[in-house]
């Protein structure tokens, strides 16, 4: 469903970014990069008081004519950004949420691996498989 999925670290560098192979990857990289501003804006808008109540799912970050960008932030400020095709109107908000939840779970599994150093690029095969399944689903 997604055409591009990215995991951004707290310091705003990518830990993992994968696009559907047919597309122009650079364009997606740029979209993800620009979406980070929107993410930060949404996070700061919540205010410190709401830190605990802040919802992890940010929803639609911004739409373009071809794509929609959704965001999700974890409590450790790791961001997941997902770019989906606008033509795919069947995608409901709840489905996007479930996809982010899957991402989050897989990310947690990667973190639990003692051989993974936080801050490294994510090279886990299981994570890759999960992301692939999400991307293929749509196409």
């Amino acid at each position: 469903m997604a055409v591009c999925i990215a995991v951004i670290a707290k310091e705003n560098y990518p830990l993992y970014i994968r696009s559907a192979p047919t597309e122009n990857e650079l364009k997606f990289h740029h979209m993800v990069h620009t979406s980070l501003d929107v993410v930060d804006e949404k996070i700061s808008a919540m205010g410190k008081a709401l830190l605990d109540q802040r919802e992890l799912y940010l929803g639609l970050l911004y739409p373009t004519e071809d794509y929609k960008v959704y965001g999700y932030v974890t409590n450790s400020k790791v961001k997941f950004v997902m770019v989906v095709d606008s033509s795919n109107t069947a995608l409901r908000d709840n489905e996007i949420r479930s996809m982010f939840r899957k991402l989050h779970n897989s990310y947690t599994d990667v973190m639990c691996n003692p051989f993974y150093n936080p801050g490294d690029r994510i090279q886990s095969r299981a994570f890759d498989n999960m992301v692939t399944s999400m991307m293929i689903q749509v196409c």
Partner: protein
Amino acid sequence: MEGLTLSDAEQKYYSDLFSYCDIESTKKVVVNGRVLELFRAAQLPNDVVLQIMELCGATRLGYFGRSQFYIALKLVAVAQSGFPLRVESINTVKDLPLPRFVASKNEQESRHAASYSSDSENQGSYSGVIPPPPGRGQVKKGSVSHDTVQPRTSADAQEPASPVVSPQQSPPTSPHTWRKHSRHPSGGNSERPLAGPGPFWSPFGEAQSGSSAGDAVWSGHSPPPPQENWVSFADTPPTSTLLTMHPASVQDQTTVRTVASATTAIEIRRQSSSYDDPWKITDEQRQYYVNQFKTIQPDLNGFIPGSAAKEFFTKSKLPILELSHIWELSDFDKDGALTLDEFCAAFHLVVARKNGYDLPEKLPESLMPKLIDLEDSADVGDQPGEVGYSGSPAEAPPSKSPSMPSLNQTWPELNQSSEDTAIVHPVPIRMTPSKIHMQEMELKRTGSDHTNPTSPLLVKPSDLSEENKINSSVKFASGNTVGQQQAGVVAHPPAVPPRPQPSQAPGPAVHRPVDADGLITHTSTSPQQIPEQPNFADFSQFEVFAASNVNEEQDDEAEKHPEVLPAEKASDPANSLRVAKADSKTEEKTAAGAPTNVSKGTAPLAPPPKPVRRRLKSEDELRPEVDEHTQKTGVLAAVLASQPSIPRSVGKDKKAIQASIRRNKETNTVLARLNSELQQQLKDVLEERISLEVQLEQLRPFSHL
């Protein structure tokens, strides 16, 4: 005999060989047969062998003493190096490589020899680490214990051995190898200790490269035998009989080795399908892994934390990426720690990888940690099926990713799962009737006064049990004759309850006093207990209730309880009233249920977490459902039932715990899906709003930018 000066390596090697030949453990004299075997394995022409024997004095003496043996070995080395055989040559030839013997058993030795002779050769190889498998005979003879095998291992190592090693030897070898290396820092082995107790595979290859120079090539045997050996090794148990001499397999030059290893891998794969699973852990391997586990974590039921495991496996010098993948495969429950099974699986994967096997994408079945008792292979098989709706082990624990099943599947699965859990629960809950009766009696007394006899929801079996309960409780409440009548009245609408009652009427009078006491003491708790898991043991409750109904009847008749009387009266007027009261009561119970359940959980003999979990789980499940009270009573009975069973056997306990873990996970999945569905329902409006906003923005493209 001339004085023989041996280097340290040579000394060790020779002493190992001597012990190998010294099957009679005389420590003085070596059996001629063995020695001859050894010499044959040295691949020297017979006349050379005879010459050697003559030179060393064995022919003269008629046996091989230690010195003769050593001299003979030295001469073998001399001969293999191409030097003329002279008595003087044993001392004059400097830097003589260790004699290499190529017999099947001797491969290890040759490898070992190679390792001894040249550190550099074996630098990168595991061969050093994985010393040749202990002499087959010795392994078989001796214990599997590492200690006893250790000296043998060294002896074996020195024996020229073909790479083909019976599978039996392979597993023990690796651990031995590991240990051996850790103990013998000789000749470059010191670095190998942690290289991993690889089975022979790579060591073989390595050894051969090391021994390429001196090893005689057993013509025509190179590739196939190693492969077979390889395979047999992989096939762990069955081919142990292959121990005996394999024709000089591999041993040959590096080229042969590489060919062999390549073909071997193919062979293995081909044969693995026909033989045992190459991922199977042999007993010796498992024992070794368990011992290693103990060094890190003495409690076999405990966990190895991730950091400790990381250190341990890092020593194996595999790349971090592969170790990370191995971890992903082996940490089945994704908790960041390794149980014994997970550790064994990980270790086995490390060993396999070191020997050139590619890591699988999924955890092989034989390596899957058995969450339940080892005998429960069925459970293991079920585990991935139950736990995850996908086959991949990474996805196996659904509790971790409750949202995984697609939303589309949520509803049907939800229903099914709840029904499934209903079915599953009863199984472990069969318990001693007496206690159940007792508790049910209490329950019925206090709780189900107002259960609705007329609303027999015939849909679910829980209803039936509920009805039974109701009937019994009604009778209870009614006390004497009134109760009887009510019981009769109540009995009518639900067809089922009356049946068991009459049959059980003659039932245990013995229960009465017990029940009475129980009733009094437990009345306060029983209503709280009622809102137990609804799905539990519906069927068992049925029986129980039937039995308890009878008891209750009798008790009612015999005793008058004040609570019963007022209940009676309340119930007398109208069933509807009863129903209302029952409902309110159940709801109260539900409210009280959660805290009570927790407290109740600790009270009974049953392992606290188990019943608590069940209750909570069932409660959760029940909430969306209508039939609370039936389920609760059912659950209560189930819980109570479980209590007596628990002390029965630890094994059942463990199974029950694990079964409950599984159930909990399933419940988690169900609940998560339910949650997502509810969220979806909640968010529909929000979605509309977003879409409207989007449309608005689309209509104003420039203003947004």
